[in-house]
């Protein structure tokens, strides 16, 4: 099915606008990348941008560690620069590295896993990438203006208002985060619609790969959590620009409101950071243990439980802010309750390893490292839930150790596992095992050497975010140990980048399925063609590709007679009746939408508007005497002050309008006839193969009809499982009756 024998025929131009806004057909080179709306190219763009910001964040981390390596050391960077470093390190690593890396996989892998040709709204997908790109550039431009944000990545309120953070540094942070917020929400809306509405025929919710499930839950968390931070950023922006009184204690306002609204977003945010890597690890462990995931519905159920309960625990970040005993005790209990589903996930991962054939390749090493370190991070997290001792731990290096264990040990190790696992599918080349292993061991030892001593530093009373510390506290030698560990981690990251470049240049080619995978994305060639699937695949069960390759594995269970709930024997017996539904090869071939400039233009406009808001001139361009003499009406002052922002906003709005006027455009792909025959042969073969499998009445997999409603409505996923089973039971009984007639 090579791509040469496919004919590309541009769609006929339809209306008046098509001449003004023609949609290019697969342009190559830079324009191809700037106007791309193909989910694979956007995924690669996210990956490359995130890996670039990863270098910047890593550099900031190294400079922090050099500054802290010995007591009363003040001649590496000034105090203000140090504050800028750790603020930008936090903001960059969370918003510009780990989230976009996860979104890169959402973009690239999720559509392939559900057998879709692209996401639901391709141009909106490109728009959310460009908003992310311009937002990240906007925040980091502040370094060039010498006014990088220096109020810590949480930006607590009295410090961030215009009296204590004068100048533009606060505005860069506030406006930059709002633009990144819009990008995340728009992206999440797109992913949920894709997962809910564009699954391959036969792929019910309980047959979706776990990574896709985690994408769905993370995207739901994003759309419900980001509005909270948008509101407190808007309120802070009004406080900074128009001197309103939201966080002004003298006017009756409560600065604590910022902390509440920030952490209402903050805690779901940390689950947004950890759930995708959990999904990746849940994909990798079964493949490299060569056995199915242990307790699939419970992994999915606990993911949903973690997601939903994430909204009930936010004040454990604020136990020391004096909320009263009842609130502190209540939130301590809800935080402990969240440890149970997390525990379930860890048990199920280890259960997958039990009695498996563990192939120790690089993704597996990272996944095992993930399990161990995420467990360590989970325990120090449990210690924070203990609100009594949290008064000692809060804002100390114990907290720094905890969240680095879950963010680097958890999210980053999981994401590296994902990169090594799906790199062959994305580029068609294998990353080298030896360099991968060297990188793993450097990172693993360096990471533990850096962040485990911080537990002791934290318990020894070292507070967070301090530029330097007194010799009397004798924290010096432990900090030196941490700094050396950081050097090891830097070496590991350098090895990783060298490995990426060398493999991209001259890596050894690999087939479509290098790791003997289980999910649908390993059935298509790597790198996958533009249209992903020639015919949308027909999915019979969870890990469908695995049962196609090893039909007999469907019955090797502890006790043979028990039918495997996941291999849908019945529908695989006669797939033909599904065929017509599956392949909607209408007469003009596969329709692929064309590239479009407007996501880029709209995003650039809104970012320019943001820049205009940051660089507003409070005097509105009037001279001091004029202002002293005349009193300028409020509206004209507003327009004069934000004229640059209005220009940017106008470009953005016009971009969106033109985007909506754009024709469908694009092109149709046709395959010549002999391929048609080859296509149908493949279908016949799979029918023969499945007939050969022993004939056994398999319980029809509980196809939950309204899974998203159940999953979304009922808090506890287990309850919905039993409800689905009862419904299933009576449906099954009448299906049996039908068979007997």
């Amino acid at each position, binding site marked *: 099915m090579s791509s040469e024998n496919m004919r590309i025929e541009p769609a006929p131009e339809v209306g008046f606008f098509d001449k003004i806004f023609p949609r290019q057909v697969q342009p190559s080179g830079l324009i191809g990348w700037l106007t791309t709306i193909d989910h694979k190219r956007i995924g690669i763009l996210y990956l490359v941008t995130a890996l670039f910001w990863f270098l910047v964040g890593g550099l900031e981390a190294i400079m922090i560690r050099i500054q802290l390596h010995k007591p009363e050391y003040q001649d590496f960077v000034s105090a203000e620069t140090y504050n800028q470093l750790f603020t930008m390190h936090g903001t960059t690593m969370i918003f510009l590295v780990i989230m976009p890396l996860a979104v890169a996989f959402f973009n690239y892998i999720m559509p392939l896993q559900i057998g879709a040709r692209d996401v639901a709204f391709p141009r909106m997908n490109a728009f959310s990438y460009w908003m992310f790109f311009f937002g990240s550039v906007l925040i980091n431009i502040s370094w060039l203006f010498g006014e990088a944000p220096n109020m810590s990545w949480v930006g607590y309120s009295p410090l961030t208002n215009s009296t204590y953070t004068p100048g533009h540094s606060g505005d860069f942070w506030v406006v930059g985060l709002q633009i990144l917020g819009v990008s995340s929400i728009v992206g999440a809306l797109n992913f949920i619609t894709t997962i809910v509405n564009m699954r391959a025929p036969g792929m019910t919710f309980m047959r979706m790969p776990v990574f896709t499930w985690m994408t769905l839950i993370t995207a*739901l968390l994003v759309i419900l959590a980001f509005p909270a931070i948008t509101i407190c950023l808007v309120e802070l922006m009004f406080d900074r620009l128009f001197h309103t009184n939201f966080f002004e204690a003298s006017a009756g306002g409560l600065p604590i409101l910022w902390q509440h609204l920030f952490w*209402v977003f903050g805690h779901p945010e940390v689950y947004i950071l950890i759930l995708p890597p959990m999904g990746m690890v849940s994909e990798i462990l079964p493949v490299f243990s060569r056995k199915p995931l242990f307790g699939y519905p419970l992994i999915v159920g606990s993911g949903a439980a973690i997601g939903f309960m994430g909204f009930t625990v936010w004040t454990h970040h604020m136990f020391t802010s004096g909320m009263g005993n009842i609130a502190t005790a209540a939130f301590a209990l809800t935080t402990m309750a969240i440890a149970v589903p997390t525990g379930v996930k860890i048990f199920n991962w280890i259960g997958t390893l039990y009695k498996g054939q563990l192939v120790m390749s690089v993704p597996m090493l990272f996944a095992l490292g993930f399990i161990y370190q995420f467990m360590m991070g989970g325990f120090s997290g449990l210690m924070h839930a203990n609100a009594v001792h949290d008064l000692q731990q809060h804002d100390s290096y114990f907290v720094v150790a905890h969240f680095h264990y879950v963010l680097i040990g958890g999210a980053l190790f999981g994401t590296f596992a994902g990169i090594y696992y799906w790199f062959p599918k994305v580029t068609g080349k294998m990353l080298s095992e030896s360099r991968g292993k060297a990188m793993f061991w450097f990172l693993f030892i360096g990471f533990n050497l850096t962040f485990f001593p911080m537990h002791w530093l934290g318990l020894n009373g070292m507070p967070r975010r301090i530029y330097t510390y007194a010799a009397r506290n004798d924290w010096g030698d432990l900090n030196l140990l941490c700094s050396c560990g950081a050097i090891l981690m830097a070496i590991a990251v350098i090895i990783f980048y060298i490995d990426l470049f060398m493999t991209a240049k001259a890596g050894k080619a690999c087939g479509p399925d290098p790791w003997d995978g289980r999910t649908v994305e390993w059935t298509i060639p790597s790198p996958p063609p533009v249209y992903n699937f020639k015919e949308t695949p027909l999915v019979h069960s969870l890990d469908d590709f695995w049962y196609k390759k090893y039909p007999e594995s469907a019955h090797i269970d502890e006790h043979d007679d028990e039918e495997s709930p996941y291999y849908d024997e019945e529908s695989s017996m006669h797939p033909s009746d599904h065929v017509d539904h599956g392949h909607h090869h209408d007469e003009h071939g596969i329709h692929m939408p064309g590239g479009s400039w407007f996501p880029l233009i709209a995003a650039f406009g809104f970012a320019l508007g943001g820049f205009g808001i940051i660089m507003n001139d409070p005097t509105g361009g009037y001279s001091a005497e004029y202002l002293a003499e005349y009193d300028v009406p409020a509206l004209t002052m507003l327009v004069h002050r934000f004229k640059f922002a209005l220009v940017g906003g106008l470009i953005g709005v016009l971009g969106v309008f033109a985007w909506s006027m754009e024709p469908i455009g694009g092109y149709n792909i046709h395959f010549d006839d002999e391929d048609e025959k080859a296509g149908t042969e493949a279908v016949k073969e799979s029918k023969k193969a499945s007939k050969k499998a022993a004939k056994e009445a398999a319980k029809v997999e509980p196809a939950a009809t*309204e899974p*998203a409603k159940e999953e*979304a409505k009922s808090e506890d996923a287990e309850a919905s499982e039993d409800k689905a089973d009862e419904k299933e039971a009576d449906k099954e009984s009448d299906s049996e009756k039908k068979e007997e007639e």
Partner: protein
Amino acid sequence: MHHEEDKEVRSLSQVAKYTITALILGIITAIEVLVLYPPLAYAGDGVKIALLGFLALTKFILVVALFMHLWHDNPLFTGIFTLGMIIGAGTLVALVALFSYYPKPENAVKHPPLDDMYEMRYKEKSEGADYDKHAMVAPWESVPGVRVTV
């Protein structure tokens, strides 16, 4: 396949249904506002809050169920919207409860007890104060001579 006419008829009955809903909404809004005026104003605070809450909830559900067709649309939409509402309303209630712990500032501009306000207005008017300084007339003011003891 339902043929042309009954679709016509059905949509007409739909229009009638919408008109009735709109009327009900109008009536509920009227009742809500009347809660402030004397005959209902004498009810206790708790009763009034419950009544207002109930009326607002019915209006909310009427618009969501009928005008937004959520009643006989795919349950997926109901699931999405109720998820957003549960977390949104839950966070709102939790935040307001959490913030009730913080005392109001002493120099906060007091919410004058309703009958003192009446005295204040009456006194100023009698002393020839410039009446439209309080241009806004509180609703129970419109019926002179009514003393609301709250």
